[in-house]
């Protein structure tokens, strides 16, 4: 067998690199965002859980709940936890859907779920109009009848051979597997290549609140947007939010409104520490160019450490005030 000509070796290596890059850039989960979705967030769980900056976020109930739900299913042959794309739509009402990558076929996944849970779960597999669906059911005691019934714990819908939509329903409603129509890949071009320090990246496809429920008035101004949350230095955090508005005047108003809303939030949280408030209030900018708005916030480690101390201090003060008030109230009875 002839040895490979070095030129062809280089070409093969370059091709493999490009193919790998293209595969990442063409992450098919982005092209499977269902119609009706308002907000999608690509969560880098590895980064989120390894970063001291985002520890509080990672340990919050919502993120822990998402991770627990993901851990419950053996998605990959390597046993790793995939990064989900969380899909939010206004009508979902406390249910959620995630787009998850898997390297198992429906039969393999159903089999592995059954092997993991044994009799504690019932796994059903069927072909639907949208794709192959796996339904996982767990026993539930009906309070009224005291009978044990199998209730849906989660549904997995194969949108492509490697991408599944996974949802949990909290209210007995139909899970949000509305039509999985493809959106143009170009829509997600800015988010295809997430820098390594990115914790979360997301798209705002439509404003999730109707006008009457939106105190900021942004629903009438904004058409779409995207954002990235990252740790630009150890212990620091940054947020970049880009909005596409309905026109130039709308963009100017949206930029101003965002600034107002953030300022009010900071006052309502930090008015007892005037220096901290000033520091935080000067950490962001909100500008408009044409019909676009760019909101940028950068919080260095020192600011975040101060926020953490402030919150802990205030909680202690509130606890102390509560104890004193209780003691006085008891003494006066």
């Amino acid at each position, binding site marked *: 067998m002839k040895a490979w000509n070095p030129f062809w070796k280089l070409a093969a290596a370059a091709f493999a690199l490009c193919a790998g890059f293209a595969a990442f850039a063409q992450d098919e989960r982005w092209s499977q965002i269902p119609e009706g979705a308002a907000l999608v967030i690509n969560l880098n769980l590895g980064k989120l859980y390894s970063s001291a900056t985002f520890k509080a976020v990672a340990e919050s109930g919502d993120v822990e709940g998402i991770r627990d739900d993901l851990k419950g299913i053996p998605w990959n042959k390597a046993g790793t936890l995939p990064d989900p794309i969380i899909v939010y739509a206004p009508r979902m009402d406390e249910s959620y859907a995630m787009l998850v990558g898997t390297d198992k076929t429906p039969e393999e996944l159903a089999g592995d779920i059954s092997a993991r849970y044994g009799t504690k779960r019932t796994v059903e597999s069927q072909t639907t109009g949208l794709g192959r669906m796996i339904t996982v059911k767990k026993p539930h005691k009906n309070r009224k009848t005291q009978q044990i019934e199998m209730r849906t714990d989660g549904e997995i819908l194969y949108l492509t051979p490697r991408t599944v939509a996974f949802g949990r329903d909290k209210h007995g409603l139909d899970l949000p597997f509305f039509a999985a129509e493809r959106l143009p890949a170009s829509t997600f071009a800015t988010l295809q290549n997430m820098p390594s320090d990115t914790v979360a990246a997301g798209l705002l496809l439509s404003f999730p609140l*109707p*006008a*009457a*429920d*939106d*105190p*900021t*008035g*942004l*629903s*009438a101004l904004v058409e779409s947007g995207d954002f990235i949350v990252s740790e630009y230095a150890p212990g620091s955090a940054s947020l970049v939010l880009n909005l596409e508005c309905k026109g130039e005047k709308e963009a100017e108003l949206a930029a*101003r*409104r965002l*600034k*107002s*809303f953030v*300022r*009010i939030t900071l*006052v*309502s*949280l*930090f*008015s*007892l520490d*005037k220096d901290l*408030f*000033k520091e935080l*209030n*000067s950490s962001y900018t909100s500008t408009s160019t044409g019909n676009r708005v760019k909101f940028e916030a950068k919080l260095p480690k020192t600011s975040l450490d101060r926020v953490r101390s402030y919150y802990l201090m*205030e*909680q202690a003060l*509130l606890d102390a005030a509560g104890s004193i008030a209780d003691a006085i109230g008891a003494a006066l009875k």
Partner: protein
Amino acid sequence: MKKTIKIVLAVLAVIVVLLLVLAALVISAPKSYPYTVADAEADAMTAAEIVDMISDAVVDDEGNIPEIAVVTIPPENVNALLRIAAYRLNREIRDSGIECSFGWDDSAVRAEASIPLPLSLAVVARGSASPVIADGVLTVPSLSLRAGHLPVPNFGFVKDRITADDIKDEKTKLAFEAIHDLSASQDGSLQIGVYPEKISALTRLLLIEEE
């Protein structure tokens, strides 16, 4: 005997006529307050301007937070906010058949509710008041209540003087205590002075409860 019967019948007739007149004054056809999605969008935009007004009030030109932040809200913005509030309330109580309308007219809050009765009839209740908060006391001078076309005296329906001690709910109490003063100006604007530090206390309470 005949005379007694005639008197009784006459009295009964007067009572019946009075009741009919009362009914005619109070009962009417149900009232509807049309409010489209386009109205909600327009009012949301106008009401949201209040966010900018509050933002300008809570930080001064040097970037400092004042002890009392004073916001003056023009009548059209107060009106928009109240209309949106009515729209959201109507959404929640849709099943009851009751429909409400709120507004801000001539420096007073106006509230109207169409309360359904059998036979496709209703009582339209109306109220208006100019709330004032000063020295920790909420008063409602110029309170006016009507049922249909009939003026109704305030038999304790609305407390005309409220202090923080009257409020049981802790969050509402804190929100009340965060207000330094509230009144309507002569041009119809609503002026509110708030303590930013007390808003901060309320926010933290809400956040801790969330956890």
